[in-house]
Structures are given as structure tokens and as C-alpha cells.
């Protein structure tokens, strides 16, 4: 799968950031920048990992920061971790206990719905 970071604005002013393929230290700064700029104007942010085949702790750190920043700005936030997400994505979230701390949903659609500001 081609690696990529896409951001799309959907209904209600919510930005959906899709991470395709593998992400690690070599793309973490890009991911972080795209998140920061999305949060400048979006009412909510959904991060879609359903097409993500790999993430490491450098990316996980960016996701945690994203959730904190969204909360600070009163923006909604959710992450989609689906059956189609890579084994390693599930494994890292379980090992670190972040499956319980990050606002995860099991599909892109559910994450977008959950990213509407409260």
C-alpha cells in the first residue's frame, strides 16, 4: 500500500486525516504538522487508521498530543482503528494501554460521528 497522509474537510467542519500505509519516525513530523494545521480551523478531528498498516511509538506520541490539543481547543476528536488496520497498530495500542485512553472507534464513519464537538 502506498504511504500517505490525506486531510479532507467533511460536513460540520470536521477534518478527517487518513494515514495510509506505514508511519514511523520518518513521517511523524509531517503527521504532526498536518494535525496542527487541521486543528487551526476544524470543529473536530477524526484520524482514520483503517488503512494504516504500521505505526510505532513516535506516531503514537503524535496521536496522544493531537487528542490533548483538540481537547484544549474545544474541538471534537476520535481515531478509527478498524479490523483492516494492521496487526501492529492493534498490538501497539493494546500493549501501551492506549486503546483505553485514546478515543477510538471501530470505523471511519463512527470516528467522524464521534469527532463532532460536544
Amino acid at each position, binding site marked *: 500500500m502506498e504511504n500517505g497522509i490525506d486531510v479532507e474537510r467533511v460536513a460540520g467542519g470536521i477534518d478527517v486525516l487518513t494515514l495510509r500505509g506505514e508511519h514511523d519516525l520518518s513521517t511523524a513530523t509531517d503527521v504532526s504538522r498536518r494535525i496542527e494545521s487541521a486543528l487551526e480551523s476544524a470543529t473536530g478531528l477524526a484520524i482514520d487508521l483503517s488503512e494504516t498498516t504500521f505505526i510505532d511509538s513516535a506516531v503514537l506520541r503524535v496521536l496522544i498530543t493531537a487528542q490533548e490539543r483538540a481537547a484544549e481547543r474545544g474541538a471534537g476528536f476520535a481515531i478509527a482503528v478498524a479490523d483492516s488496520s494492521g*496487526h501492529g497498530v492493534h498490538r501497539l495500542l493494546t500493549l501501551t494501554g492506549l486503546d483505553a485512553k485514546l478515543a477510538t472507534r471501530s470505523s471511519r464513519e463512527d470516528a467522524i460521528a464521534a469527532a463532532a464537538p460536544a
Partner: protein
Amino acid sequence: MVTVSERVEIEIAAAAPGVPLVRHALRGLLSGLDVSDEVIADIALAVTEACTNAVVHAYPNGAAGTITITASHVGGGLSVTVRDRGRGMSARVDTPGLGVGLPVIAAIAQSVEIGSPDGGGTEMRMRFALDGPAG
């Protein structure tokens, strides 16, 4: 007696773009063996964390350096060594990382040995089971 059937050595510059290259090379090695996707994912994660640590911590202030990764298929397992020639293990509280790299490696690998090789730097030697779920 142990039979070494496969051995890969990779040298990368100690910088972020090298990290996925190592992972891809390892997957290539493992794809020729009868290993489950779960085990491959686990090994990819642990080795990525070790390489990331070498990139982030071994050479402070962006100093240039190299990282050498050796993978060998030994008996029923895989042994992967990640070695840098940087400043040696540090233990500073002000790390830019999440702090779960070493624990993730230790949780996934059957064993991990962290040593200070002659010539300086840090060597991390991980052993993985290849049959069934890793760890």
C-alpha cells in the same frame, strides 16, 4: 548445534529515513520463512523501536553516525542486533519520546540484551520466537 540459514546485515545513516528501510529488509527476510503475519508485525514493531532509539538518542544534536542492523535466523528463532556508535545509553528524564520503546521491545522479544560494545555506543540484541505468537 545451531544452524545459521539466513543472515542479513544492513547499515543505515542514523536518521529517520533509514528506519522504514530496515523494516522492509526484515520483512523481506521473513517472507521467505514460514512465519505468521502477527509474528512479522511484532518483530517489525520491536526492531523499529530499537532503530528509532538509535536515531533519536545515540547521536545528540543531529551529529552524523551510522547504525548497523544484523538479522540472523538461528535455530527456530530470529536474532536481530541494532548497534550504534553513539554516546552510549542515557537515562535523562527530558526525552522527546513517549518512553515505551524499551518496554515494548522487552514485551515482544523473548529476550533483549542491552550492552556497551567495545568502541562505544549501544548494542541491542533481540531474540524472537518465529513459531506462534511472538513473546
